[in-house]
């Protein structure tokens, strides 16, 4: 006999299969399952997964799938998923992009949850407002951050140069770095990185002169002369060998792993203060953290406190309430915040900051201490950058390299940068 299945049997079998699989689906739906997307280093991934695990331990009906990417790939991924109607429930957001996403209606407005499942009143108004777009709250501050100068104290001390401190002038900084290089204790080692192509460094320099990168309506807020002076200052740094030469700096791909301290090419690098923990994690030599150098008397505050990143929830999420509860867990619950530590910046909640500080490791304590020292001296948060600003960060790097490799003068580079940056912003 051969095995035959008639039509009726086949239909019955199919119906049974569908019935069974829908039972399976039903079970999966009973548990709230969400997706959480973030960018960052391995350090961040480990900490975030630990927080998720702790949350699932307490909430058996919730399951959260986490996915991590590098900065560049992250925005591609998020934009593609959002365009495809498949946005993750929980979104790590950046101040640079929140206006774009919020104004296109892709993010959940947290306002109705405030004081209920989202209890972040102790953030203080400035830290809450940094997640607002057009008066509505779309992002919850994940950590307070600023720019910083990190220094390898071992290499610095070897050179016999007086230690760095907050409030150095740019000239003092140049002189000290030149001495570190001149001491010649390590082969191919320099005082500082060349920061002429680093946008946050340039922004700090502009603000110290009372300028800024962009105006409120998205135009350039500096002139060719400002950019030319900036390129000229770093030209001087290269001339006196205070910073690394052009072909060494070009190895820096604006990632933590390729910065000049990690590559052991220089004693000083410039980055965001939360990144200090990851930079320290890459090497054994003790690092310290300082404010940017300043122009001396008459200078204005160049640095500002900003949200290192924000937590947003997708407007199309099927589990909005559960997602908001998890966001609250990350910023206000002692367990969640303990898992994250200060790797995403110093917690905005004063209550959590007090709870966390005693148990922090040395590098994290340095960051908290730094933000505390810096807070009285910072300026206001600048407006969110316009479309096209992302391209300008790379344009600055490219033109700074042209000057460093001697392809153009600082003067011409200033003019060229302003022209092309303005065109990028206009184009959007």
């Amino acid at each position, binding site marked *: 006999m051969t095995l035959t299945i008639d039509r009726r049997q086949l239909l019955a079998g199919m119906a049974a299969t569908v019935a069974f699989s829908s039972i399976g689906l039903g079970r999966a739906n009973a548990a709230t399952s969400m997706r959480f997307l973030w960018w960052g280093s391995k350090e961040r991934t480990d900490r975030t997964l630990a927080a998720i695990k702790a949350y699932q331990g307490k909430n058996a009906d919730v399951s959260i799938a986490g996915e991590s990417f590098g900065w*560049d790939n992250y925005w*591609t991924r998020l*934009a*593609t998923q*959002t*365009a495809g109607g498949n946005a993750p429930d929980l979104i790590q957001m950046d101040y640079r992009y929140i206006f*774009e*996403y919020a104004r*296109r209606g*892709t993010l959940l407005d947290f306002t109705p949850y405030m004081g209920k499942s989202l209890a972040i009143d102790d953030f203080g108004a400035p830290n809450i407002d940094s997640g607002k777009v057009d008066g509505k709250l779309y992002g919850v501050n994940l950590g307070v951050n600023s720019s910083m100068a990190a220094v390898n104290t071992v290499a610095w001390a070897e050179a016999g140069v007086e230690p760095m401190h907050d409030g150095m002038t740019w000239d003092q900084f140049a002189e000290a770095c030149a001495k570190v290089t001149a001491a010649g204790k390590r082969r*191919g080692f320099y005082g500082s990185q060349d920061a002429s192509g680093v946008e946050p460094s340039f922004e700090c320099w502009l603000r110290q002169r009372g300028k800024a990168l962009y105006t409120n309506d998205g135009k350039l807020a500096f002139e060719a002369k400002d950019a030319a002076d900036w390129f000229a200052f770093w030209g001087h740094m290269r001339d006196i060998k205070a910073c690394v030469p*052009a*072909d*060494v*700096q*070009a*190895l820096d*791909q*604006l*990632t933590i792993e*390729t910065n000049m301290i990690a590559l052991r090419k220089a004693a000083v690098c410039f980055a965001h203060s939360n990144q200090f923990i990851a930079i320290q994690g890459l090497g054994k030599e003790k690092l310290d953290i300082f404010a940017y150098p300043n122009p001396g008397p008459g200078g204005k505050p160049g640095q500002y406190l900003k949200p290192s990143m924000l937590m947003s929830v997708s407007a199309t999420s099927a589990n909005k309430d559960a997602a908001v509860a998890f966001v609250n867990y990350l910023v206000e619950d002692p367990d969640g915040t303990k898992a994250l530590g200060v790797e995403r910046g110093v917690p905005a909640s004063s209550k959590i900051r007090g709870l966390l500080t005693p148990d922090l490791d040395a590098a994290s304590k340095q960051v908290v201490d730094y933000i505390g020292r810096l807070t009285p001296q910072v300026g206001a948060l600048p407006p969110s950058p316009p479309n*096209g600003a*992302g*391209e300008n960060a*790379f344009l600055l*790097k*490219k033109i700074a*390299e*042209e000057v460093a*490799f001697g*392809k153009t003068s600082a003067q011409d580079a200033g003019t060229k940068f302003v022209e092309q940056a303005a065109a990028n912003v206009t184009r959007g």
Partner: protein
Amino acid sequence: MAIGASAPVRVETYQKAPSAFARNAPGYLFLLPWFIGFFGLTLGPALVSLYLSFTDYNLLQAPHLVGLDNYARIATGDDKFISSMKVTLFYVVCSVPLKLAFALMVALLLNRGIRGLPIYRAIFYLPSLLGSSVAIAVLWRQIFDGDGVVNTLLWYVLGINGPSWISNPNYSLYTLIILAIWQFGSPMIIFLAGLRQIPTDLYEAASLDGASKARIFFKITLPLLTPVIFFNAVVQTIDAFKAFTPAYVISSGTGGPIDSTLFYTLYLYQEAFGYFRMGYAAALAWVLVIIIAVFTAFSFLSARYWVHYDD
């Protein structure tokens, strides 16, 4: 049997004759996966990208038609289009002839009946398999950076303090060209096959007449190999225009330093996924298709003057 009996049979056969489609149905069935792939993953997206190239699509908002704006910008107002095209053309013009020459040289060496040929062939083919992977691009960074293998050798052998090849705009593109030449395996295999096709009696006749080795190479080997050279040249040129991974990994997607490794495909990628200008990137892609088509057409036109089909 009588004739009358066979007639109905013939009619019946005629009626039952399956149509051409039905007769080939099993064939089409087996081709179905390919058809699905071709229409769903190649032709469909290509047509969509052609449409998008006339829009301002930015991933988050619905596309609006902007006519020929994107193409007009490429033609008139885009410095990066020109600089990336220069980089790409330089790369194509340098890497393809050098790679083919190198592949031919190795093929000639291997064609002399040495022992263990399959092993050598496999070893020499290996870089082609690995060549466009991320791991190799990372390795390339290690070899050519300031403290890399190349400079260590230069220092110990010649006492020269070499520059950081990979991060110096004067040299960075050459390191990518060397990477391309190193992947000589697939043209080499094809050259080897071509060399085997050349009748040995021609060589015997030539050596009897006392022709020098150089003369034999230029008068027999090279002319008879021209169809294979032509095929390799066309394929490698198209490949070189499309090169992406090495430059992406080595410059971490920036095309730096100073856009010296900003290949056309890398620029296209930046516009699309860095700055979300999908419409413009789609236009760039179609311009590349046209450029490659023009180059290929030129190759075929020129072929009649130098390719010998010896039949």
